[in-house]
């Protein structure tokens, strides 16, 4: 009986050791797999242009055909195996599409003039305080830009020396 007691004591100690080591080593079990596109962190990552909703990170084919004939379309060859980039130019925006074997994705949207605005109402020519009032606190701020980020999706708003918006771009991080 003494022996059994001793063993159980030792084993209890070892159990404790194991339980310390066996702490959670995997990643979170509720990984956010879908790229949420609406209203994350106060900003939306889509643009309404001539009645077509262009969603950053969304499927490209239907959107591109809904947008009608672009002013120009220009293609860049397969770069580093990542797929090929296609640039569609419309009168007020540029849309960049990444074409890969697994499908075509809206990769970037840029504003060319002040005739378009974000769902929050931001457009080129506004002041920085207007932007902050409409979009709230930015994820990152530099002397010349504000960036709103959610996962891989970014909205980058650039300013000139006077603090006026001169650049608006929806950018997806490296895939």
């Amino acid at each position: 009986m003494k022996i059994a007691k001793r063993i159980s004591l030792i084993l209890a100690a070892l159990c404790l050791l194991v339980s310390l080591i066996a702490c959670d080593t995997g990643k979170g079990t509720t990984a956010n797999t879908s790229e949420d596109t609406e209203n994350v962190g106060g900003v939306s990552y889509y643009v309404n242009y001539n009645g077509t909703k262009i969603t950053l990170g969304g499927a490209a084919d239907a959107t591109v055909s809904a947008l009608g004939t672009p002013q120009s379309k220009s293609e860049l060859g397969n770069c580093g195996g990542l797929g090929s980039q296609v640039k569609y130019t419309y009168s007020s925006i540029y849309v960049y599409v990444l074409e890969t074997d697994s499908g075509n994705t809206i990769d970037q949207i840029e504003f060319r003039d002040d005739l378009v605005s974000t769902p929050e109402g931001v457009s080129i020519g506004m002041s920085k305080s207007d932007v902050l009032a409409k979009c709230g606190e930015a994820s990152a701020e530099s002397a010349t830009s504000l960036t709103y980020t959610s996962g891989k999706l970014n909205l980058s708003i650039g300013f000139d020396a006077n603090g006026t918006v001169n650049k608006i771009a929806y950018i997806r991080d490296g895939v």
Partner: protein
Amino acid sequence: MSFTSYTFIAFLGVMLLAYFLTYGKRQWITLLVGSYIFYAFAGLDCLAFILITTLSSYLVSRLLGRAIGRERAFLEANKETLDKAQRKEYKARSKKKRFRILLCGLFFNFGILAVLKYSAFAVRNVNSIIGLFGGKGFDVPSLLLPLGISFYTFQTMGYLIDVYRGKVAPERNIAKLALFVSFFPQLVQGPISLYSELAPSLYEPHKFDLKKFSFGMQRVIWGYFKKLVIADRVLIAMNTMLDAPEQYGGAYVLLLIVLYSVQIYADFTGGIDITIGIAESMGIKLAENFDRPFSSRSTKEYWRRWHITMGRWFREYIFVPIATVKPMLKLNNFCKNRIGVKAASKVVAYTASIVTWFVTGIWHGAAWNFIVWGLLNCLIIMVSESLEPLYKKFHARFPKLAGNRFYGGFCATRTFLLMGLIRSLDCYRNVATTFRMWGSMLTFRGIGEILGGGILRLGLDLTDIVIILCGIAVMYAVSKISAKTDVRESLYERPVLSAILTCALLICVIMIGNYGIGYDASQFIYDQF
């Protein structure tokens, strides 16, 4: 560090060199250090687990050894004074005590394995039951699964049970026991060795022996050939089909079953060839794990020839103890008077079989598909055993058939396909999908498509298919010859031919092996089981 990585090859080179350079009484220490380095590559936290298993097993085995020693001394000292009944009584009592010590060791180590490997599975199942009643369930834990834990735990627990049974004396040197637990070539995928067969040659010093060394290396190269040239190439086509199972129904399922049989055979026996070859080149003898399994004529025979050391483990440490435990004996005798002798032992043997196969299934992986796989194996064996009298009558009627080559071929093919069929459960990894795919086979659709070029759309081109077919032919030929003679031994008498064949095989591995960038040579399938 997988066998097919450059790191492992480099490690092996250094290891072999160090092993022979340290020839002498302490040579085994080199192996221990090497094994721990090997294991450390899998992660330092894994190292902690193997240490805990070693330490606890050492303690328990020493306690068991002490208890046995005391028992023997007591019996010896009181030989004259005790009568038979008293002796029996003392023995029964002390055996019970010993058994308690053993149970501590088993519960602790199998406990670790169970928690790490099965808690997520258990929680998921509990959750789905709770879900039926609208409950929310628990968070599914995600725990670290140390490399080869199923293998080393089983091997070490086998050792504990053997000590308990008095079959082997407990190892006094904990470092030596640590080597037995962690011997690097067999850590990842077995074979599961018995202490009594492995330990002596593991600790003994071994001088460099050109013959053993070249035999070992030949076997290693042969293993790489099977794994890299054949298995990893077949895997490409399998993955194409498994990525979208629904697209590949009908005849494709049959194709998958055959491909998977080839793949797992080449991969697993190849891996074991590498393992045994490495040990052999160092002069260490490991148990064989395969004996031409695909030539088996029945499921029962197949399981005596496939993954032999695992089958042996389950038979010796699970099936036999369950079938001969006292309540079972009583049950057997109780039934004998009521349903007859044969039927009574069937009740007992089948109960033990079902438990054994359930455990075998779950040992392979914490998922329902493995459990179903194990139970189906059990079912087939039980059914064919029940039909035994029928077979006997049949063979009495056609006495010539048993020796007929074609009948033999038919039986072997039937067993091959049957085993392949239920093995496909661990391809699809989902019981429902598997059953659906089996059902789709009955439609026979897709035969024309496969023959009409569909086979070339699975990721393999014609050259690959030719290579696979040639590879299978070579494997078949070698297996056929080795049934009669030891291939390497007979080649040894013809050194030039032997050298040419070995070099050719090596160049084949390097040139047409499926490794490197773009192919991510797959891990051995038996990892972490």
